[in-house]
């Protein structure tokens, strides 16, 4: 009796597994990570660069304006290169530049900004690199352009002349 119950139970379990696998076969499994097309801003909580206060992402991206999120670090050489473009972008009034300071030494970061000037409206800290992961960043530097609380463009690597002109076009 016990064996009968056990065996029929096992048969049912295996049949269920069969059905799930069968259905799984029909699902397409070609997974493409979707890049930049109108993705929502990730939700995160982070510490400010200049103070020990915490801020939530919803309080950073408050209105429907343009934002640039730039992941940077003082040890990152290409960040130095692209910095001049960020400084140029600073003068556009409908654009806010948010810096995410990625896995950096705070003192070095401050020296970096003193030396090259600070284009950022807000800087938040990402000491362990988790926020960059939330954004789906591949590395440093990386830049996201945000409008109406959606990510509309993503630049992997330093901003160059072409990117700079593109950004100018987008925000105007």
């Amino acid at each position: 009796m016990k064996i009968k119950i056990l065996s029929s139970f096992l048969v049912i379990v295996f049949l269920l597994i069969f059905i799930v696998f069968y259905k799984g076969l029909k699902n397409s499994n070609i997974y493409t990570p979707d890049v930049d097309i109108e993705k929502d801003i990730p939700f995160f909580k982070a510490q400010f660069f200049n103070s020990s206060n915490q801020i939530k992402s919803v309080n950073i991206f408050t209105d429907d304006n343009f934002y640039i999120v730039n992941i940077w670090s003082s040890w990152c050489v290409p960040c130095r290169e692209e910095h001049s473009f960020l400084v140029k972008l600073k003068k556009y009034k409908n654009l806010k530049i948010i810096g995410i300071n990625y896995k950096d030494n705070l003192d070095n970061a401050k020296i970096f900004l003193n030396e090259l000037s600070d284009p950022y409206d807000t800087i938040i800290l990402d000491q362990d690199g988790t926020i960059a992961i939330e954004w789906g960043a591949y590395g440093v530097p990386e830049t996201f352009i945000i409008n109406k609380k959606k990510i509309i463009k993503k630049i992997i690597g330093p901003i160059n002349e072409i990117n700079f002109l593109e950004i100018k076009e987008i925000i105007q």
Partner: protein
Amino acid sequence: MSSLIGLYSLFFGFSFSFLIVLNSVKNFRDTKNFDNRIIFLTFLQFFFVIVSFLGLIASFISSDFSNETVFNHSHTTKPLFYKISGTWGNHEGSLLLWLFVLTFFLLLFLLRSKNQPKRYRILTLLFQQIIIIGFFIFIIKTSNPFNYIFPVPSEGLGLNPILQDPALAIHPPILYLGYVGSSIIFSSTLSATALNYISKEWAIHIKQWVLVSWIFLTLGILLGSIWAYYELGWGGFWFWDPVENVSLMPWLALTTLFHCILVLEKRLILTSWVIILSISTFTLSMCGTFLVRSGILNSVHTFANDPERGLFILIFLFCLIFLSLFIFFFFHKIKRNDSDSFFWLSKESSILINNWFMMYFLSVVLIGTVYPIFLDVLSSKKISVGPPFYNKLIIPFLIPFLLAMAIGPKLKWIKSNLKNKFNLILLLVISLLISILITNNLDDGFLINTILITSSFYLFFITLRDLISRKFKNLSQNIAHFGFSLLILSILFNNIFSTEIITNLKIGESFQSKNFKINFEKVERKDKQNFKSIIGKFNIENSNGTIDQLNPELRIYNQPNIVTSEADIKTNIFTDKFITMNLVQNQEYFNIRYQIKPLMIWIWISVLLISFGGLISLFKKKYEN
């Protein structure tokens, strides 16, 4: 031409299945003695499959692009070695290899089982033929390696460059020997169950097959792991990738099965364990084939995704599962006898305890592997299960597992007392002290790391003491367990003390860190037969004044046009220095990843030791003690 011979041989081989089945059924019913004609027929089947396989190899060597498989996976500029290994570097060819090993092992089984009962031999042969027929139909119907294309293309598409590697050329055949060996265990167990022949004699006979498959499976996994370490440029040796998991699961089942068979051989208990484990080892191997080949899982392994193939293996797999369930429930009589009881402190109970742990590890890996599929089907959410899941669920349970592994072999069968308690406790204290010394400077995970390292050191010292001091009563077990402790220790230290630097550098720049300075001196270009290579010259100045030259490489293959990154690794007995470079697009920067990984080589050595232990056991007549 060779394709044509291959194709016809395949059909001939298939037709022999029917002859064999017919003869076997007749022999099973009528005569008293085993009919040696069956062995001859099996040999012919094996012969035709090998001709078919050689035919495919010949087509690869001669770059015969009228053959679709060759066209898809080969290229004239490929070195000869990779032309040959390309034969099984693809779905169709690897199935033919599988079939080749299946028929070979069946022949070997028939030749090696002469003093077993006739009915048992024939029934095993029949079950094995079911599997062989299944594979023949699968190959001919969905994955024929000899499809003809016309007009004949002048050039092939080439083999994926990351597969053009010596370790990966021999990795599939070795792994398949392990997988397919488990098919013999499966058939043999089913027939022994059906004939009520599960006995001590049977255990001794099947133990050899378990060991052979286990050794090959271990080596196969090791090769794959070594390949992943130096070829994928990530610096790790185990990704918990679904395809790795599907090779680990049969390994866990097989390891458990081996220990059960030792108990069975000694005391004729745990028969249900043995049957269930034999069935699950093979079904897990098949399940692995299904998961990899059907494209139901996302994985780093590149195989063609074809739902029709998946469906076939799925149906075949479940037919086998239901067949085994039927045999298990209808034929297996659980014998109750006096020796069925366990005394808590005995060798068999410690084996049983660790069997449960192994089953637990197996279920963790199984759930981690198939849960994403279930979730996707049931709620269409996509998740990916990664290392943290496995680490959290497996690592804590390694502690009692290691301790039982250390104490268990010291115990006697049936009932025992611990001797030398003082020594055992002394060793435990020593291990604890050493590990505290090591973990003292750690920032986090102090407690868990200390306990883990203590228990692995404990196993390490106990097995080491036995190795040095003893009489070699049970050398195989000793070496394998010693190897396992070494493996866990190396993995732990490797995880805890690895350092990694990722940075972007231009030629001529350098990167300074606390303990070393990386100088990127120059790059050199070279042209090879089927790729161009860019070799980076790096100069690493260590804080102790020594200088390492490391030359990672970027290879730009012509066909298919793929860039691969070859790591350069400096190995010595203490640490590996591992460097890779990658192109950063449209820039003059190279992305440099530099890692210092302690005890890397000991991971490989310990796995070799583990399989060496198995090898010794294979040549030992009887399990002593």
